[in-house]
């Protein structure tokens, strides 16, 4: 085992780290922005809206991420219609293709997580909102979504981690992410163990940070469910 070659080439791993973090963050944010309205429409929209959304979710949950990425990257490049269009400058870039596939993929999974969380909203909360005279939109914004987000958080933290690990596939379409960096080092020095163990450490560190942040958020969002031992307002009677 020879880890000096890793330290000599650590720069390439940091380039990879940067690419992984940017790719995953942007696709998670865009995916979430896409998923919220879709999840709401899945619960409250009519059939003509629900059907295409269901088809979209089914396609992205029903096919491997690798296949989706190959479709976007190599598949789209096959059609002159796309190659001559205004979109081509975007789809020409491997980075954009990965972002595009990742966003739609995580969007589909997140929409499904949120759909379930919205469906599980306590009837009492909805009845109370209606009794208070809230319009449907206001009710969704103030009551249903905040409560659904809380319920969805544990499942969504899984999705974040899956997305991080799924992003390793970006390396097959020439992007130098953490895995891409490991593959370059492996191919240059034929040291698969050192190269990929280093990548594993990077991924584990990122996962640790994600788990830590989600935990923080959980404490904050579920504050009302914590035992209120330190609350001076509720003191045991003397």
């Amino acid at each position, binding site marked *: 085992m020879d880890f000096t070659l890793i330290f000599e080439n650590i720069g390439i791993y940091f380039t990879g780290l940067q690419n992984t973090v940017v790719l995953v963050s942007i696709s998670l944010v865009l995916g979430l922005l896409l998923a919220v309205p879709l999840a709401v429409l899945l619960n409250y929209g009519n059939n003509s809206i629900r059907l295409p959304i269901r088809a979209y979710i089914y396609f992205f949950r029903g096919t491997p991420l690798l296949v989706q990425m190959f479709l976007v990257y*190599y598949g789209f490049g096959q059609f002159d219609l796309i190659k001559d269009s205004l979109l081509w400058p975007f789809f020409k870039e491997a980075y954009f293709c990965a972002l595009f596939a990742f966003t739609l993929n995580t969007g589909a999974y997140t929409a499904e997580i949120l759909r379930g969380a919205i469906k599980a909203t306590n009837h009492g909360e909805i009845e109370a909102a209606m009794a208070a005279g809230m319009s449907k939109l206001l009710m969704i914004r103030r009551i249903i979504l905040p409560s659904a987000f809380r319920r969805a958080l544990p499942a969504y933290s899984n999705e974040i981690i899956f997305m991080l690990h799924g992003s390793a596939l970006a390396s097959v379409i020439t992007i130098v992410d953490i895995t891409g960096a490991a*593959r370059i080092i492996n*191919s240059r020095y034929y040291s698969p163990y050192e190269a990929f163990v280093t990548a594993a450490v990077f991924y584990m560190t990122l996962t640790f940070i994600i788990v830590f942040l989600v935990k923080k958020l959980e404490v904050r969002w579920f504050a009302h469910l914590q035992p209120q031992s330190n609350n001076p307002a509720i003191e045991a009677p003397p």
Partner: protein
Amino acid sequence: MKRLIALAALMVCALMVSTASAKDWSKVRIGVEGAYPPFSYVTPAGELAGFDIDIAKALGEAMGAEVTLVAQDWDGIIPALLAKKYDAIVASMSITEERKQKVAFTNKYYQTPAKFVCKKGTIAEFSRDAIKGKKVGVQRATIHDRYLTDNYGNDVEIKRYGTQDEAYLDLTAGRVDLLLADSVALSDGFLKKPEGADYQFIGPDLSDPKWFGDGAGIAIRKEDTDLVEKFNMAIDKIRSDGTYKTIQDKYFDFNVYGE
């Protein structure tokens, strides 16, 4: 019960003995790539074919060994040899110093230079300045990857692919401006095909032994020195009895063995 355990122990011993002594090389598993036309590719019927494949089979015959071909992606081809997934690699692998630190090589079985390819009319004359800032595609973990990284790493943006076929796709899609690869692979695998009609060679023949080694050889685990000898004898045999020339003429109209 005790007899059963004794029997099982005996069988385990027998298994271990048989794997330890099964090195008479009457059966040889050969790792090939399958995505590097015309040397190695998969036919529409799903069968492996190409110069490397025919050479591998001919060498097996010359050695009197039964050959099993194992297709393996390029960037895992040496690790899989070391992990004993097969016993030899016949995959147009250039004999280089770096690889020699991990594996043993036979003598060369062919040698051809490397070259750049670009779209016709995009680069007038090849020079470092002419390709500065361009995107250059190359197959990961090849001598061409290494040459490009060492010589043009700061001048061009290098895109690394798992297979040569993927690199061709991206050249025609306009995602890279140039490719660097083996000249014969480029000419027969791409330029002579309809999708390669708009593309051409550019720049000099590259064959500096520092990067391009001493031709393509067969890689074998270092401890199997007897197998290296067997393959060297087999290469000499097919060279002298005309088998090599028959295979060469099937794919090329020039001398692919080099000097």
